[in-house]
């Protein structure tokens, strides 16, 4: 995979980065940033939808992920877990102020957690948390019904994650999505909002940064630019035009096929972040032809994973990755399930013949707006046809897709995708369909045994082994086919220093040549 061209590129980028670091950071200026999605709301607890990066500058949580995808304290100074794993005590950072100038205390954290458990987007992950209380002004304590090692991980996961709001704001918003008074502890305050056009953030001078070295979303932050203006531009080609004309300083989620063109442009640099987005396939293991495990195995056997990734763009900007959900760093991206994907069409056809399949239509469902996942559809359509299946490809817009996928009688196979870094609890979403019902004949007892270890053990190595077992169960059950990762490309104007080279959620540490 490492091509000479790629090596050269890495070298050039390293040199450029070294040069950048050699310069003294400068304060000031306005950073205009093109993001791919419009902002639903600043209310960070409420929505998991991207762009999370906009919210992440305004509100802090208790933990954030570092570059190894391990949770590090953000608003927390120190913490301890009781020996039985049931009680977690957090000492909060002192001298943290909200944007309205009031100090953040344990009461705010408790009030925010009250709200989160009521309406938070991922509150379900926290069902082991039984109670929480303020011990003193700067200490909060959480009590679990059973040991939960992944607690800080779930706290650290940004999208729809827990964030600390002032207690009065929690009272004002209640269960509704907040629509004004976005007051947090983050390095930037909300400025002028022109809905669907631009979202201005203004530096908060009294921001108290987290301790520790800067790493991915964790650690010390320097807010160099005075203002950040986020501009939603949905069309990837338009984002590229906007960075080339200098209308924006940074463009996120640039198409892989634009890499060479942007690299060649004199006024633009491109940063490649790995991993970026996962691409996989979901099979309907409860109804229709793929309820037959033999047919699922047949597809696993037939599929040419590389072919499904080649459609994503130039070959050094993606990788085949058969590990379910977790990434290297986080879980040493293991185990490798490649043996399940022999790329053997002949054997696959034999398996189809052995299966119960008798020529009924196989509904392949996709949503063209959902890139990069949708890119695999024409190739998958062909793979299924070559296997001898009677494929019927249907496309829906994103909203209809979201609804139809809940109806197991309406589809048999579809594309799927998601972010690369996810909390451990997410692995359990492989077990159930969209209504929360377990897939037919899933080996749940075996699963639960290993899953309990993952959730409860505090020893990373032990948890890692549990993940390996869980992955093997998934590989064997074959209701999901994990194909690969598409790297995230960020384009920055050459005047932008320290262009974000990770999929991080921060534009702090970025500065502008004046």
């Amino acid at each position, binding site marked *: 995979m490492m091509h000479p061209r790629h090596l050269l590129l890495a070298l050039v980028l390293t040199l450029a980065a070294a040069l950048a670091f050699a310069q003294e950071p400068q304060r000031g200026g306005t950073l205009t940033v093109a993001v791919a999605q419009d902002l639903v709301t600043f209310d960070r607890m409420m929505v998991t939808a991207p762009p999370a990066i906009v919210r992440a500058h305004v509100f802090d949580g208790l933990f954030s992920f570092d570059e190894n995808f391990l949770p590090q304290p953000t608003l927390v100074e120190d913490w301890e877990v009781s020996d039985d794993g049931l009680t977690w005590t957090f000492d909060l950072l002192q001298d943290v102020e909200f944007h309205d100038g009031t100090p953040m205390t344990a009461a705010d954290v408790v009030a925010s957690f009250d709200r989160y458990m009521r309406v938070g987007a991922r509150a379900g992950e926290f069902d082991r948390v039984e109670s929480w209380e303020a011990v003193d002004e700067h200490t909060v304590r959480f009590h679990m019904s059973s040991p939960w090692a992944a607690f800080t991980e779930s706290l650290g996961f940004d999208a729809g994650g827990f964030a600390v709001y002032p207690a009065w704001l929690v009272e004002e918003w209640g269960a509704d999505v907040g629509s004004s008074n976005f007051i947090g502890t983050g390095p930037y305050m909300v400025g002028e909002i022109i809905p669907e056009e631009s979202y201005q953030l203004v530096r908060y001078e009294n921001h108290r940064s987290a301790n520790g070295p800067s790493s991915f979303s964790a650690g010390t932050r320097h807010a160099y630019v005075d203002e950040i203006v986020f501009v939603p531009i949905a069309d*990837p*080609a338009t984002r590229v035009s906007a960075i080339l004309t200098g209308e924006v300083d940074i463009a996120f989620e640039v*198409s892989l*096929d*634009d890499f*060479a*063109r942007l690299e060649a442009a004199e006024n633009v640099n491109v940063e490649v972040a790995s991993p970026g987005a996962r691409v996989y396939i979901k099979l309907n293991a409860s109804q229709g032809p793929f309820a037959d495990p033999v047919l699922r195995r047949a597809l696993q056997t037939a599929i040419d994973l590389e*072919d*499904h*990734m*080649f*459609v994503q763009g130039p070959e050094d900007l993606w990788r085949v990755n058969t590990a379910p959900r977790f990434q290297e760093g986080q879980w040493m991206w293991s185990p490798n399930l490649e043996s399940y994907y022999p790329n053997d069409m002949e054997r696959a056809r034999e398996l189809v013949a052995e299966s119960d399949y008798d020529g009924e239509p196989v509904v392949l469902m996709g949503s*063209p*707006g959902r890139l990069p996942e949708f*890119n695999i*559809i*024409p*190739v998958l*359509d*062909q793979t299924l046809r070559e296997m001898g299946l009677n494929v019927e*490809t*249907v*496309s*829906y*817009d994103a*909203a*209809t897709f979201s609804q139809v996928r809940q109806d197991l009688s309406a589809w048999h196979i579809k594309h799927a995708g998601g972010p690369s870094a996810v909390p451990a609890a997410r692995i359990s979403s492989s077990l159930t369909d969209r209504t929360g019902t377990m897939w037919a004949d899933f080996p749940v007892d075996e699963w639960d045994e290993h899953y309990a270890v993952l959730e409860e053990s505090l020893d990373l190595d032990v948890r890692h082994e549990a993940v390996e077992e869980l992955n093997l169960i998934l590989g064997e059950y074959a209701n999901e086919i994990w194909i690969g990762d598409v790297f995230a490309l960020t384009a920055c104007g050459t005047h932008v220093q320290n262009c974000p080279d990770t999929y991080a959620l921060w534009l702090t540490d970025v500065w502008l040549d004046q």
Partner: protein
Amino acid sequence: MTDAPLPDPVREPTAPQTARLRPSTKAGRIVRHLLRNQLVLLGLGLTVFMIVIALAAPWLATHDPLDTDPRNRLQPPSAEHLMGTDNFGRDLFSRVMHGASVSMRVGFAVVFLSTVVGMILGLVAGYFRAWDGILMRFTDGLMAFPGILLAIAILAALGPNEANVILALSVSYAPKVARVVRGQVLSIRELDYVQAAIASGGSNWRIVMRHIVPNSMSPTIVQSTFILALAILAEAGLSYIGAGTPPPAPSWGNILSEGGQFMYQAPWLTVFPGIFIMIAVLGINLLGDGLRDILDPRM
């Protein structure tokens, strides 16, 4: 984009005109005019050319339009791939040929459906005046929505597939046909010999089919031509919005809009389908423009 630029040849209800009735000389006059006017001939030629391509697509195509070849994506035109390959490594030439079928099929189906429905509505409203009020309020209501927004909303409700694209566009165009037909009917039914036929107790069906329909056809024919042109463009526009013929089946519209992401890296992905759409629609517009001059000289 779905709103017809010119298919409102009769300015009604405010300005009913007196109809021109020269049935005996009409056909001969049309042919003479057609042959004299080079632009109309050009338009006719281009239209016929595109129809032939659409019908012959399965024989013209050199590859299966759905066959992907991911390792040979975005290849420029060559002997193997006459128009190059797209981002899935599919043969663009074959997709454009098959796309002609889809686009022309959508266009003609929309013309047929909207004209038939529009004529029925217009005839009923113009001839049976009791129905006029309610039918015209109905068409007013539909026409109050910008055509493309109505089509997008209908497609969102019904789901995007070829049949629903046809339905959605027909719903946008039929009221316009209805209004034109109604205007024609209103003026024709006031003519002396039609009034005489009504007075002498002729059956409504007979009067409508013998006198009204034949004499109200000219503007409808002109309008149909423009609807064909608009429907092909509208299908492309809908594809761009994400509500057109759904992939991976090729239509000119979805080939062009998908290629829009590769304008720079692979210009052939937009140039070829773009030119095909332009030529087809230009041909139809030239034809319609000429027909209008001939059939409806007042315009």
